[in-house]
């Protein structure tokens, strides 16, 4: 051996890069496997199914031959689901990749070796960073490339498919790079892997958390919040979520990839689409700027990570809570989250208590979080002054929202500024179908309750005429005034008003309570051009777009298959008989119905003077087996069709027409065609007794979903059997005011409505027939005879229902003013 003083320097970065590939293998393989399943595998299955279906239908064969000319491509099987899963997998895989490649800096043993090696720290960091990126890129690019090959096999090669594939790879890779860079930066700053995972997750979730907190505060403190997660509107077939998280999804690392995959680049191939697609080429919507911006952010974070890594002290490895900045960020985020959640939960019930509790929670969360990091009361209390920053932030946010956003929430646009408006249906049902609804999802409205009579689709619009918009503005104006009036008779409710202004911008307001006057204004929207057109469309017209029938309304669809129309006499509510009509008769009936419905005022429709003698129900029969899809008859299961037609999710409203005396043309049609025999009046002799109770709901009943036996929009039905035990008892006890006198029974039968908007007054009457059946109908307040009106119905206010429902007072009573005891 000889003295080796003249050792030559060797660039070891390439070796360090190769060496760093090894620890990333596991997350790489897991990510690759997942992406391969979601992308090429499921896509292959989908394409195979679709093309198998196409081959079965000769109608489409010609179209299939030139699919590639309209550049249909399918990178993922299902864009919506894939977007979520791919985002989640990318986030997790990138985080794990970062942890696997940089965990060496959290162990003393490995640091001893790696830091003493003859390589600059920056080069060591970059070589490992690049190794991780290469693995992530490969795990993304390989499955997408395979999916492209599958496309070529089924559809053929198109340049657009290749562009889209590159766009998808780039978009996913930008998220992977971002997450991976954040992880690397966090790992460079902390001493343990647990912190690396926790802080990375925290940083990535901060925008989402921030949006949710703002939205929560707005919904709690603003009467007329401009945000509502889960509420979508869809004028252009591109749904837009007015929740902050999705509205600003492009500014959120958790959601931007979802938006890209959803919005921009997935040509989902379906049999029914082929005809449409083949007419004109698909437009390619590529907006790479979002991914580019996030990639630039990732680069900035990487530069920060390198700086942190170079400044990192080796001695912190293995020690928890060594990064003061991140510790503070964690306590700040926790404090603000605790503050917001506390305000959101308690503020409506006890304002002062909620503010005090929230303030206490901020300091408590600060102490707890800091104790976790420092494990020292002394250190925690020494830095307690930092909690002041949390208080300042909380006070600013609270002040902004508590003052109505400095008047922002009270702004009412002028009618001339509005292009169109949409309003949720509250406390009543509509007679419209899905296509008259501009929204297909509505947060919090799944529950069917007395004051939220909305279904998933029950935001109606667009109202476009000046008069219609004025009516919406009247309602909106009333709601804004409600805040200042500070009335006591407010009811929990969920009212959505949504405008599209002339400049194309959108204005959204969400109100979580209203009074009965506001509900009435809501009902008046029945008398709008929009409603008339919608009713006409619903019963008469099949909407045509570009020469293609895009939907067949359920009324026609049912008739096409059944050639019958169900009728329901006023005697019993759940028993139907079926009218056999000729096609001509059916057309006449539809015309008569729609003419009547469009001629009715909202009072005539919701609060008719005279009760209906029966109802025509467009309802499926057992013989219904097939359903028309374009030119094909598709065999479907009956229960599926019933669900399709009557499920509020698809039908959006009722299919029942009540035959009040105001339905002049319909009644005339029935009489002319000898069909009135279906509607037999009830005789007093068929009735054994009638019991009454006031149709008054407690204002908190909005939360009493599925537990109440009636809603503001009352519908007659057979005696309940499915309600909560307590409710059954409630009815049993409540029906104390019972009559058996035939004259009185006859008087009630003349006045009992099948359907009526109660306005939270009037009486529910339980008609017990001699055959043992019972039906509940409604007596309007002004129609109620003295023996009903003067009866002393008592409310046992202290009674509380068991089960999950909240404090609905029990209504009952007796002539001796005795309080009804339940249980």
């Amino acid at each position, binding site marked *: 051996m000889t003295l*080796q003083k003249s050792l*030559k320097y060797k660039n*070891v970065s390439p070796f360090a890069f190769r060496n760093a590939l090894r620890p990333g293998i596991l997350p790489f393989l897991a990510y690759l496997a997942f992406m391969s399943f979601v992308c090429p595998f499921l896509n292959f299955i989908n394409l195979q199914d679709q093309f198998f279906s196409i081959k079965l239908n000769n109608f489409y064969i010609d179209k299939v031959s030139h699919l590639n000319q309209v550049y249909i491509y399918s990178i993922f099987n299902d864009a919506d689901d894939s977007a979520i899963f791919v985002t989640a997998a990318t986030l997790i895989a990138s985080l794990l990749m970062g942890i696997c490649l940089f965990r060496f800096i959290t162990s003393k043993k490995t640091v001893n070796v790696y830091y*003493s*090696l003859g390589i600059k*720290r920056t080069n060591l960091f970059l070589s490992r960073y690049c190794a991780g990126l290469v693995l992530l890129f490969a795990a993304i690019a390989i499955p997408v490339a395979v999916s492209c090959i599958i496309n070529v096999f089924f559809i053929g090669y198109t340049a657009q498919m290749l562009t889209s594939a590159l766009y998808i790879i780039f978009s996913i890779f930008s998220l992977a790079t971002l997450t991976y860079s954040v992880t690397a930066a966090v790992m460079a700053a902390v001493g343990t892997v647990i912190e690396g995972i926790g802080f990375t997750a925290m940083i990535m979730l901060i925008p989402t958390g921030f949006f949710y907190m703002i939205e929560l505060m707005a919904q709690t403190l603003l009467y007329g919040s401009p945000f509502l997660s889960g509420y979508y509107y869809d004028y252009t077939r591109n749904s837009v979520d007015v929740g902050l998280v999705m509205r600003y999804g492009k500014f959120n690392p958790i959601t931007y990839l979802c938006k890209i995959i959803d919005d921009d680049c997935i040509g989902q191939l379906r049999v029914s689409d082929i005809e449409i697609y083949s007419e004109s080429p698909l437009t390619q919507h590529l907006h790479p700027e979002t991914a580019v911006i996030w990639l630039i952010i990732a680069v900035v974070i990487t530069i920060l990570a390198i700086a942190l890594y170079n400044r990192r002290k080796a001695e912190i490895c293995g020690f928890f809570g060594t990064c003061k900045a991140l510790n503070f960020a964690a306590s700040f985020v926790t404090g603000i989250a605790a503050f917001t959640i506390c305000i959101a939960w308690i503020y409506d019930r006890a304002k002062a208590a909620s503010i005090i509790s929230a303030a206490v929670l901020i300091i408590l969360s600060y102490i707890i979080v800091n104790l976790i990091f420092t494990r020292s009361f002394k250190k925690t209390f020494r830095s307690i002054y930092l909690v002041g920053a949390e208080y300042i932030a909380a006070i600013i946010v609270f002040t902004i929202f508590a003052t109505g956003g400095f008047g922002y929430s009270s702004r009412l646009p002028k009618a001339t500024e509005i292009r169109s408006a949409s309003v949720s249906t509250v406390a009543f049902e509509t007679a419209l179908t899905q296509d008259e609804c501009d929204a297909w999802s509505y947060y919090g409205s799944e529950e069917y309750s007395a004051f939220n009579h909305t279904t998933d689709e029950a935001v109606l619009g667009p109202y476009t005429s000046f008069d219609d918009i004025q009516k919406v503005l009247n309602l909106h104006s009333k709601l804004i005034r409600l805040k200042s009036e500070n009335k006591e008779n407010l009811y929990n409710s969920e009212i959505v008003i949504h405008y599209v202004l002339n400049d194309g911008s959108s204005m959204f307001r969400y109100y979580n309570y209203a009074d009965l006057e506001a509900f009435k204004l809501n009902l008046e929207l029945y008398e709008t051009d929009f409603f008339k057109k919608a009713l006409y469309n619903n019963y008469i017209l099949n909407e045509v777009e570009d020469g293609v029938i895009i939907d067949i309304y359920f009324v026609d669809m049912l008739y096409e298959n059944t050639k019958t129309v169900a009728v329901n006499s006023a005697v019993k509510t759940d028993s139907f008989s079926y009218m056999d009509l000729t096609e001509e008769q059916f057309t006449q009936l539809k015309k008569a119905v729609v003419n009547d419905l469009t001629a009715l005022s909202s009072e005539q429709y919701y609060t008719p003077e005279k009760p209906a003698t029966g109802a025509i129900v467009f309802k499926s029969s057992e013989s219904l087996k097939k359903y028309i899809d374009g030119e094909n008859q598709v065999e479907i299961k009956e229960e599926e069709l019933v669900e399709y037609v009557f499920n509020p999710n698809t039908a959006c409203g009722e299919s029942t027409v009540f035959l009040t005396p105001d339905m002049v043309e319909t009644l005339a049609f029935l009489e002319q065609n000898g069909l009135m025999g279906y509607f037999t009046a009830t005789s007093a002799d068929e009735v054994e007794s009638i019991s009454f109770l006031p149709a008054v709901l407690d204002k908190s009943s909005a939360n009493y979903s599925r537990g109440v036996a009636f809603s503001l929009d009352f519908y007659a039905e057979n005696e309940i059997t499915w309600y909560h035990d307590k409710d059954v008892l409630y009815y049993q006890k409540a029906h104390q005011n019972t009559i058996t006198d035939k004259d009185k029974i006859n008087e009630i039968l003349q006045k009992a409505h099948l359907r009526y908007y109660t306005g939270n007054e009037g009486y529910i009457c339980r008609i017990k027939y001699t055959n043992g059946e019972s039906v509940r109908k409604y007596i309007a307040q002004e129609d109620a005879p003295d023996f009903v009106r003067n009866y002393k119905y008592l409310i046992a206010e202290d009674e509380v229902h068991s089960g999950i429902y909240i404090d609905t007072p029990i209504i009952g009573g007796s002539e001796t003013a005795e309080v009804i005891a339940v249980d």
Partner: protein
Amino acid sequence: MIDIKNVTKNFGSFTAIQDLSFHVDDGMIYGLVGYNGAGKTTLLKSAADVYRPEEGEILIDGENVKDNAKAKQKIFYVPDDLYFLPYSNMEKMAKFYSGYYPHFSFDTFRKLSKLFGLDIKKRLNGFSKGMQRQAELILALSAHPTILLLDESFDGLDPQKRNVVKDLVGEYVKETGTSVIISSHNLHELSGISDRIGLINGKRLALDCGPGEASGSHSKIRVVFPLDFSEDVLLNIEHKKLVKDGKIMTFCSNEPLERIRQKLEDFKPLLLEEFPLTLEERFMEEMEGAEYDFAEIFKV
């Protein structure tokens, strides 16, 4: 050549080593001793650029080691706490180090492995602690560094292997002119191999000398008195490590023998003689402050 210049390293508010300086020449083996927690490992890690000192600098052949890839490629640091790649064997580790050390010799690696009788294909996590240490030393020497930093590297080796390692390191230094720093709390171990000894005590370098220079101005004095005097007779003499056995007193002092003789003249000592301190005695003398009064601990 290693130059440690006024190095101070803090861990938060705790100072591990303070203003520490010494020099290790080419071809020199420098033994670093000190009690547990004295800062030996901190110093070695600082020399390997694992830790970054708050003050001072460490030069390798005249170049600051801080983030200096060229300087660091000359260094092989063998830590006390060994690390091997997951599921690796010696062969894989050799490939790993060969990527980072330009002069890594597989020939040396194979010869040394054979000498120690280690299976290079066997997983390292199946090795005993002593075998792992041998493996790491083999890898270190195969890398042909010009700076070798060994932290407690003889720990866990059996006496025979310990001698082999010592001989090997000695031979390697002789052949290559490598500068070596070996840390240990075992003075005997270092005294046989080191060209120079450094003693870290109280965060500072308390002693920096050759093995034969350990005594320095310090010496051990033995006095025999005609009567059984009390210890007070030494009141005006600077001394440490006093041992009294009847009329005989033995102690260490840095005062010249003649001055001590004059100060004790009144007590008419029968015998007054001076001995040089061994390295161990000097070590113990420096560490005197760390002695415990065990009896005091258990006093109720």
